[in-house]
């Protein structure tokens, strides 16, 4: 700096600033200096100067399975610290899912790949560029022959434009797409019935009755936030038939447990009742018939919608399309648009074509852009050995994963929170992704990586901006391009004759593969927040299990943790058994990515299961899920029925008058789909440490907000409940009474506080807590964190050290922020001004927070309803967090 200032005074202010910026950029490259990209536009207001401690919000998106998930990124001092839903977005309206919440950790993950690797050895970008340049000369000569590009699903206009440009230059090159969890059957069915491939967009807020045939539309996936938000608006009458419990199944008033082979027969029965021709009459068991009759009767009342799981074949989807057409759902509860994800040139078998070509030696150069075909593709393809036949293979991705190791080159790419890109949300609305931070690693944007093959040298910003000639600034400020969703298509039926194949075989045990609720296709294996998040319904963290039915467990004398071997053909899969109440007797469920190595499809009959005799320790956050005789989750017959038992609060002491504001929370158990978005949001917001599988297995998980899963009734066909449990902020808190050093005290605004620096770790508060929401720092969990994890922490929340107790604070930092803002403005805090992290994250708006002393606040109105009740009223703790009971139908 001194040298620069010593230069002749001809330097004007601007060039001096440029010089300073250059030196800062150098510092950033060397010293991981966090700095916002100055070309990114902060959300709504763009302050001229950075105010230390004052957060800036940027509207952007994170990517998931080819789609964009709209987010607002909170950046403090140039560091992104939290992602929240974009409440202006037409698709999600602010809803989030756990993957969206956890994307933040992906940016800071210390395991991210940081340097290019050549044959596994660290190399430089220059060496890579030289190698590529040499290669492109050869490809030029062959006009692209032998050059292949493999990507994941793509919705990015810029990437599509780049690929198009590349194909113009190299007409013989081919582009392939691998997306392990996909919806090809739906597109194929629309193609068959409606004449062209169309994206189906069910609108659950427009349906009065939804019949789901093993379709987990509320479960994990790119459309979870969007669909769950829509569902929660109307909460239609829900009929679900499925072989294993799903988030959607738990919300169903009528849940039918059937093997997946029966799903087609149920569809045929509904089709027959709905008057769709061509459906063969099906024989139904009594309980199936009752379910179908009830479902048909409910559908008949109007606004009906039938959905079927993406894993079922094209013919079944076609049949369901016919049913929906007959129900009048087209254009209302079921809308269509042109496909949102770009269709790969070779159709749904894009990857198979590539592998065949690789094996045949027709591929000389392969560029894999952000895909993981080695692990996340069916083992039968044997991508790895095909890859060995490729002369020059390059993998560009965030992690040096199995594919990276199998390629000649691996180059690290930028995370979407530090680069420019674009794409479309699941409803088709386009958005521009802007960086919240300048890259702090020596990494390139995928766009830039691809551009170099074309000999270009543009930056990611320029590449993306070239795709958006107009409305750039507006799109950056809003977080999406207004009205950019493809127009709704009103299709006409061209084919009413559906001949269904025979129902698939259900010999022996049927293994169903399901997308992993926290790992998806395995792409989040590095994300410790997601690893530590319990998979809904099984409450298992860090790794997957083999879900068996209670009946099978009885038959084979299995208990949780018994190691089992699944055999099919010459393949086998070892896993720990986990008894899943409510699972069909002869169905065994495994999750991705384990399933890729074992199965070639989502369903396989005739699998044998045997006990190995060993047991495995399962890191379960909730070993016991049977609610037994207790009434933690209450169910009422109708929404008008009272759920609480004790109306008179008994106390020795005179009733206390609370001053306004006094905070409270209401959680609607009917809305909760157990998705864990709130839980991950809480981890991000409150710097909650991750402890690892071993400690979770010992019962030392740190979640401030956990989602309990309970089964009620017979294990073979129970009702499933989710119950988010944050701190109850009891008015008569036993924990406070137990603390000898005044570390647990009550605030005047009704919060149960935990004063970390006062805590000496007697753990009395936890022993006395009836809800066991308190978490203890058994070891030093935070002090040894890598620098990047430290950079990620929310500076408004104290980082806890060893030996202190911690727990949910109702996001006291947000309350404090709102109070300061209100004081500056000289007004009271408005209702809805304080939004807790969990409340913001919730896709179904199950959580409402606010001032309980104000009878007009949203939370007070909810609590005044008949369904309101306190968890464990008998303990007489007067919780501020209360629940709304479930309604039976």
């Amino acid at each position, binding site marked *: 700096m001194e040298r620069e200032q010593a230069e002749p005074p001809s330097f004007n202010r601007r060039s001096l600033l440029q010089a300073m910026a250059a030196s800062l950029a150098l510092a950033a490259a060397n010293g991981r200096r966090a700095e916002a990209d100055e070309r990114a536009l902060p959300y709504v207001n763009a302050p001229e100067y950075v105010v230390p401690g004052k957060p800036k919000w940027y509207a952007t998106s994170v990517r998931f399975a080819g789609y964009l998930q709209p987010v607002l990124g909170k950046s403090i001092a140039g560091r992104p610290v939290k992602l929240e839903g974009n409440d202006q977005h037409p698709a999600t309206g602010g809803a989030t899912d756990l993957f969206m919440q956890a994307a933040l950790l992906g940016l800071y993950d210390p395991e991210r790949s940081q340097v290019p690797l050549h044959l596994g050895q660290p190399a430089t970008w220059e060496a890579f560029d030289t190698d590529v340049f040499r290669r492109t000369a050869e490809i030029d000569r062959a006009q692209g022959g032998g050059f292949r590009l493999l990507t994941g699903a793509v919705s990015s206009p810029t990437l599509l434009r780049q690929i198009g440009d590349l194909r113009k230059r190299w007409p013989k090159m081919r582009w392939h797409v691998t997306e392990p969890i996909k919806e090809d059957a739906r597109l194929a069915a629309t193609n068959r019935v409606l004449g062209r491939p169309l994206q189906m967009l069910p609108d659950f807020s427009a349906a009065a009755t939804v019949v789901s045939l093993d379709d987990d539309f509320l479960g994990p996936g790119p459309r979870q936030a969007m669909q769950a938000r829509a569902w929660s608006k109307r909460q239609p009458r829900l009929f679900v038939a499925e072989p294993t419990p799903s988030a959607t199944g738990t919300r169903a008033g009528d849940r039918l447990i059937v093997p997946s082979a029966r799903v087609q027969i149920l569809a045929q029965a509904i089709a027959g009742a709905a008057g769709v021709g061509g459906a063969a009459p099906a024989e139904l068991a009594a309980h199936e018939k009752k379910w179908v009759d009830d479902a048909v009767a409910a559908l008949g009342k109007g606004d009906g919608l039938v959905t079927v799981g993406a894993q079922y074949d094209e013919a079944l989807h076609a049949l369901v399309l016919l049913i929906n057409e007959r129900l009048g759902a087209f254009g209302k509860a079921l809308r269509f648009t042109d496909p949102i994800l770009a269709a790969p040139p070779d159709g749904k078998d894009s990857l198979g074509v590539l592998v065949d070509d690789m094996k045949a030696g027709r591929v000389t150069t392969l560029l894999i852009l952000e895909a993981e075909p080695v692990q996340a593709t069916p083992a039968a393809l044997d991508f790895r050995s095909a890859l060995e036949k490729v002369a020059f293979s390059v993998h560009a991705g965030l992690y040096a994963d199995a594919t990276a190791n199998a390629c000649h080159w691996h180059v690290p790419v930028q995370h979407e929170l530090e680069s420019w890109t674009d794409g479309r949300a699941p409803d088709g609305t386009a958005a521009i992704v802007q960086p919240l931070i300048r890259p702090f690693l020596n990494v390139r944007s995928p766009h830039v990586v691809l551009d170099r093959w074309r000999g270009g040298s543009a930056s990611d910003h320029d590449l993306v901006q070239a795709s958006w000639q107009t409305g750039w600034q507006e799109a950056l400020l809003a977080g999406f391009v207004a009205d950019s969703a493809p127009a709704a298509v009103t299709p006409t039926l061209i084919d009413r004759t559906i001949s269904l194949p025979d129902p698939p075989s259900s010999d022996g045990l049927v293994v169903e593969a399901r997308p992993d609720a926290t790992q998806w296709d395995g792409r989040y294996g590095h994300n410790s927040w997601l690893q530590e998040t319990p998979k809904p319904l099984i409450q298992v963290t860090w790794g997957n299990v083999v879900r068996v039915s209670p009946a099978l467990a009885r038959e084979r004398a299995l208990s949780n943790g018994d190691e089992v071997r699944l055999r099919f053909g010459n393949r086998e899969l070892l896993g720990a058994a986990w008894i899943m109440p409510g699972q069909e007797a002869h169905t065994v469920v495994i999750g991705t990515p384990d399933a890729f190595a074992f199965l070639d499809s989502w369903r396989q009959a005739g699998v044998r299961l045997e006990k190995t005799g060993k047991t495995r320790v399962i890191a379960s956050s909730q070993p016991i899920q049977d609610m037994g005789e207790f009434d933690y989750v209450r169910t009422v017959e109708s929404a008008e029925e009272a759920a609480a038992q004790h109306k008179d609060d008994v106390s020795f002491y005179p009733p206390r008058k609370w001053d306004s504001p006094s905070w409270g929370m209401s959680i609607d158990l009917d809305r909760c789909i157990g998705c864990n978005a709130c839980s991950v949001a809480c981890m991000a917001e409150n710097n909650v440490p991750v402890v690892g599988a071993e400690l979770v297995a010992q*019962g030392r998980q740190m979640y401030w907000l*956990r989602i309990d899963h309970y089964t009620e009734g017979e294990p073979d066909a129970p009702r499933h409940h989710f119950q988010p449990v944050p701190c109850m902020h009891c008015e008569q808190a036993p924990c406070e*009474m137990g603390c000898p050093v005044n570390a647990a005290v009550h605030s005047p605004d009704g919060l149960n506080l935990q004063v970390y620096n006062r805590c*000496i*770790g*007697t753990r009395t508060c936890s*022993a006395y807590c009836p809800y066991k929401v308190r*978490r203890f720092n058994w*070891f030093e969990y935070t002090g040894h964190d890598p620098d990047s994890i430290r950079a990620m922490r929310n500076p408004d929340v104290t980082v806890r050290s060893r030996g202190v107790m911690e727990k949910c604070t109702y996001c006291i930092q947000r309350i404090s922020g709102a109070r300061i803002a209100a004081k500056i403005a000289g007004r009271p805090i408005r209702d809805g001004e304080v939004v807790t992290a969990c409340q913001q994250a919730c896709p179904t708006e199950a959580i409402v927070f606010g001032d309980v002393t104000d009878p007009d606040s949203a939370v007070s109105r909810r609590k005044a309803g008949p369904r309101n009740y306190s968890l464990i009223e008998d303990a007489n*703790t007067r919780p501020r967090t209360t629940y709304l009971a479930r309604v039976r139908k």
Partner: protein
Amino acid sequence: MSDIAPSARDFRTVTDEIVDISLDYPDRKAWWLCFIPALLLLMSFFISVTMLFSYGVGVWGNNIPVGWGLAISNYIFFLGIGHAGTLISALLLLLAQHWRNSLNRFAEAMTLFAVICGGLYPLVHLGRPWLFYWMAPYPNTMTVWPQFKSPLTWDFFAVLTYLIVSILFWYIGIVPDLASARDRATRRRYQVFFGLFALGWRGSARHWARWRQSYRLTAAIAVPLVVSVHSEISMLFAAGPIAGWNSTVFPPYFVAGAAFSGFAVVSMIAVVLRHALGLRNLVTSRHLDLLAKLTLLTGMMTAYGYWAEVFDTLYGSDPQELETLRDRLVGVYAWSYWGAVFFNFVPLQLLWWYRVRTNPVLLFLIGLSCVVGMWMERYMLLVTTLYRDWLVSSWQRYHPSFWDWSLFAGMLGVFFTLFLLFVRFLPVISAFEIKEAMFEEKEERKEAGRA
């Protein structure tokens, strides 16, 4: 009361037998054979505590919900044992039971060391043990005081008071015997050691009179103190709203159990000491008989506590309490419940027979059984309550880790090391009180003869 010390012929023999043990220990080899293992255990204590302080409480098996584990159950166990010493010493002094004089010194020493062990546990179990003094009220820059409505603060004061009172009571009781050792010591370092700690005691009648006033008053206060201390420790459990703890039966139940385990330990020590130090003249089979009777009595009171606790639960018929009770009887930790019932009460029944009571080996074994049983009871009360509390979702098993056990072993090392040093260097039996009893009984006989 004619046979408190039948073989103690005169005052000098009493002093010879007791005080000379300190000045010239009879069987040094045997002592070292005990002391070296005790030192090894003590080493385990220091290693375990170093480990604990370096890495945190996580080295133990504790979790949420079982945030308290072996540390707190052992804390109650050790303090419970301690109470018998005070009861024997203070209660029997007030009741003028002369036979106590052969037992009170080592019983009090046992109390002292058990309280030290018990008191160490809650200190080391803290998440941040270096801040333990925040429990004490002192003006500080944070201007925050301890929270006096917390059972832990009550415990802090109770244990501290109990420790101080136990030390003082034991010390003023031993001063005349230290004077005796001082007067008999021939080696310089013994003279200096005993000379300093005897405080210049010279047996003046006026001194004795004031000493007696003070000693008896302290004894009179110590008895309710014992009751209050263990009642407060029971509050640690009973004040919480957790099913299985939240019971008014707990204070008397704990006090009875504490006395029971303590008498069992005193019986064991009596058997060992009279054998090891050749004190059969002073600790006679009549003493064993009386100790056994006390153990039996308090044991049956404890059994009544068990019954009352079960009855209380059934009578209250709260579903959570019933579930906890059911789980104690048939759940995964049923071994601790039935183990406690068996070891506490089954061998105990043998003590109805005089022959068993006066058989040192049997008495020792029964005492050991009671100690094991009471340990299991503490473990059972703590773990079975916490591991299945209100919400099914928080239920989680508890397994003590290696470092839990090594600290327990180490704490036994602290106890044995201190006790062996006491046996080696201090008069283990109150010589002057035995002499006093001999004199008074002679006077009584004279009175009787005259009548």
